[in-house]
């Protein structure tokens, strides 16, 4: 089978994002070779992509060019992806499962008369359709879904595929964009830092992370005490920062910080994939959770199954006593 697969390449300060290379690897495996992978890069002017041809290891690099793409928008990027899909004849479109993909994938899927398979970690063809492995129930379960018709659309989890080594694109095509700035319904006003609060999670040797299972902000004291006893800093899962128990800059996981400390202690964190991608570089992981089936135990070295409110103070005490 020689179906083409299209991926979205996103620019970063130093070239293209790591996610772009992971998507090309995922697409290459699905398509049966990098030569059948097309990567689309929306650009305001093709000269912006100079040099990227040498590092994007796809069969073809499609530059969708026009002033509408000078800065990225949901509908502008979706239009570029749809245009490149038609031009390449790709039967599957792979987008990152991140805030860019969340914006673009449904707009692309709706235009193709389908839904996207999202939060995907594995992909295969089945007949004239696509089968995707994805996470459901906030990471508690793994689900297989089928998109019975092609073209299909999927958003791929960060880290599900290794990043492909940079290399030259076999060919480059410049496609004039089908949309002008006046056609777009959204406009990027600015991108700014949310403002870090002085704690550098990424530099800490020890991170103690608080999860929703702690029940409420009144129970965070025990997490701070454990962090103090371990000489570490406090981080949090998305649920905790969303609930306002801790500030957003302490969030670990996709759309938050990526940490790789020597010691990571997950307190009452279930371990949704969105959290795991932010901490799996840690050297030693401890999980404390009352649910023995919590996915966090699959990512931990040592676990205690029990009520975090009871166990955490005991661990703090044991650490102090051990000195």
């Amino acid at each position: 089978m020689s179906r083409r697969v299209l991926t979205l390449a996103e620019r970063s300060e130093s070239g293209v994002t790591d996610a772009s290379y992971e998507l090309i690897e995922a697409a290459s495996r699905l398509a049966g070779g990098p030569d059948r992978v097309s990567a689309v890069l929306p650009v305001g002017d093709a000269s912006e992509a100079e040099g990227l041809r040498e590092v994007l290891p796809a069969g073809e690099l499609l530059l969708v060019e026009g002033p509408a793409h000078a800065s990225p928008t949901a509908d502008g990027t979706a239009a570029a992806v749809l245009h490149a899909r038609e031009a390449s004849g790709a039967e599957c479109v792979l987008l990152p499962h991140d805030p860019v993909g969340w914006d673009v994938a449904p707009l692309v899927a709706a235009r193709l008369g389908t839904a996207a398979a999202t939060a995907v970690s594995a992909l295969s063809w089945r007949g004239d359709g696509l089968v995707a492995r994805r996470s459901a129930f906030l990471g508690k379960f793994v689900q297989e879904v089928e998109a019975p018709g092609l073209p299909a659309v999927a958003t791929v989890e960060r880290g599900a595929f290794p990043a492909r080594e940079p290399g030259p694109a076999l060919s480059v095509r410049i496609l004039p964009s089908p949309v002008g700035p006046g056609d777009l319904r959204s406009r990027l006003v600015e991108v700014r830092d949310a403002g870090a609060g002085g704690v550098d999670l990424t530099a800490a040797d020890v991170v103690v992370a608080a999860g929703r299972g702690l029940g409420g902000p009144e129970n965070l004291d025990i997490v701070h005490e454990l962090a103090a006893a371990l000489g570490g800093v406090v981080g949090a899962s998305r649920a905790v920062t969303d609930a306002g128990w801790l500030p957003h800059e302490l969030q670990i996981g996709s759309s938050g910080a990526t940490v790789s400390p020597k010691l990571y202690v997950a307190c009452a964190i279930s371990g949704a994939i969105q959290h795991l991608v932010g901490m799996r570089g840690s050297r030693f992981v401890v999980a404390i959770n009352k649910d023995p089936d919590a996915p966090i135990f699959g990512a931990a070295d040592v676990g205690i199954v029990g009520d975090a409110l009871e166990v955490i103070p005991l661990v703090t005490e044991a650490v102090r006593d051990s000195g």
Partner: protein
Amino acid sequence: MNAVALVKQVPDRNSAFRPAGDWIDESSLGYGINDYDRYAVEAALALKEAGHAAETVAVTAGPADAGQVLRSCLAMGVDRGVHLVTDRAHLADPFFVARALAGAVSGLDAGVVFAGLLAEDSGHGQVGGLVAGLLGFSFASAATGLQFRDGRLEAHRELEGGRIAVVELRLPAVVAVQTGINTPRYASLRGIMASRRKPVERVELAAPADGGGLRRLTLGRPERGASAEILPGSPQEAAAALVPRMRAGAGVSFPGDTA
């Protein structure tokens, strides 16, 4: 123009879920409103209170008992509900759901449609975006802030690495909200009383045609690559056994260690 909230009935978060066939065993589950959608409802109410919407409408697709989530929206202060009645099994395909919701929304004079970023059960995270795509509305996902300025809607979107994108949207627009964008209100007793007199329009949906967007195949627990060693014994014993393992595994010393 009106403010619309798309809401979904989902199994209670704290239920003991068991995979069964291509989904979970639903025989003994309680149901309630998807947590993310409470933030969508609050955003719609706030829009009206700020004078940017005439009326608030909550729309759901689901079985007969999904009417309960509309009642809870009305009790929070939403003016009226639209219930697209369909089998729970038909909610498996986000495209089917989105097409039904888009059909309903197109008749509501919607200025802004709010959706939760994702549903806690299926977690597809795209129904709002599909509705936008089908209706040709503007779209922003993962919104953590909203601002109306001179008749334009600005959405703050959370990007990776702690950055925020500020996006200006033409109306009508669909905004998929992150939890944390606001603080959803609780229903007051008066709100609950008043909700009983508020209208809910019921529309029976036709069964989905063959094909569609997505089909469920299997559901199971994640495989454990390297599974944790679970420390046995009482909590005290487990805590005591943990400390030397942390020292050795992580190769760190702790502040209380005597030099």
